[in-house]
């Protein structure tokens, strides 16, 4: 894991969230186990468990006794909502800061975004 990218348990949780958001981990499917996560990311199982428990606390995953963790119904919608709300802060703010540094106006920025969207 990337140590400079914040607490490792948070990174584990983020990766699972991303998988749920992009659909590779559908709702009601089984999430990777603590040991699988530990082995794959080469991290302490306690750290992996902490990441999973965070998701349980957030209502993204739920426990099935003796079976494992599963993605809750509505988890994707919930995550999308949260990520959208964080989008401005996480992506627009640094974009604006850099644009400001380079003397790019908001209007120019908007044009760039339109052009990029067209090209896609």
């Amino acid at each position, binding site marked *: 894991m990337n140590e400079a990218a914040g607490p490792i348990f948070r990174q584990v949780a983020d990766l699972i969230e991303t998988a749920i958001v992009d659909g590779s981990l559908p709702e009601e499917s089984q999430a990777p186990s603590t040991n699988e996560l530990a082995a794959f990311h*080469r991290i302490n*199982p306690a750290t992996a468990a902490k990441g999973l428990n965070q998701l349980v606390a957030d209502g993204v995953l739920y426990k099935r006794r003796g079976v494992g963790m599963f993605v809750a119904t509505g988890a994707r919608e919930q995550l999308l909502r949260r990520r959208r709300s964080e989008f401005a802060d996480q992506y627009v703010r640094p974009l604006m800061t850099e644009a400001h540094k380079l003397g790019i106006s908001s209007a120019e920025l908007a044009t760039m975004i339109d052009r990029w969207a067209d090209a896609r």
Partner: protein
Amino acid sequence: MTAVATLQDVTMRFRGHTALDEVSTVLEQDTITGLLGRNGAGKTTLLQLLTGHRVPTSGRVEVFGRSPFEDDGVLSRICFVKEGQRYPDAFRVGDAVSAASWLFPNWDADLADRLLTDFELPRKRAISKLSRGMNSAVGIVIGLASRAPLTLFDEPYLGLDAVARQLFYDRLLADYAEHPRTVVLSTHLIEEISDLLERVLLVDRGRVVLDEDADALRATALTVAGPRAAVEEFGRNREVLSTEALGGHARAVVRVAGPVDEAAATAAGLSAEPTPLQRLVVELARATRAAGPAVLEEVPR
């Protein structure tokens, strides 16, 4: 959480030299603790106390609720893999492994076999004929296959190449996940193992500098970078572990209280990142050294 081992106000002196000075710490059950520190910091002495190989000058050492000194009931639950373990001249790899299998109640013979294969250790080979790294690998095989409730690795990787070290970390993690136990990993290859650790115990010149949850620890220090004035301003009311400047640009490792500080740094126009363990340990060792007399001392082995 249950304490597996407790050190309370432990001091260890050798002829006027203090190897450990009033050390107190607790090893919790089923955790992997990184015992970090420079050479001669007191890591080996601490492990020798936990295994009853030494008796503290003062203070109390308890493992599984009893003093480990000469207590076979306690010792049979501890496996101590130390750097440069000596084996009898005539011993072959298989002899050492069999001897270990007689003495550790939780020994897993299948795991031992698999590890011997993984590390390419032929049972028939005389240990005295092994390379340094393969010699270390014998200790690693014994340490892992012992499944001892308290397993101590004291720089177990001497002479092992990066591939073999990674193999060790992977096998440790995999077996630990299946069979949780209390593991202490004494090392100065911090970067390689930082993700494996749940706890960090940093000693420097016989004193405990850090004794914390590894993940929480990373969040306790920010590496901030940006315009020099802003970096200096940010560090004014905080503990600055190190500062480096190049022209008008500066970077500092600063101890912080929480996310509030990260927000403050960002608001001040600085880039802020959690500090990797290795860097934090280096800076802390440097900072404590600068505070005290800068003398390098050797610990007798």
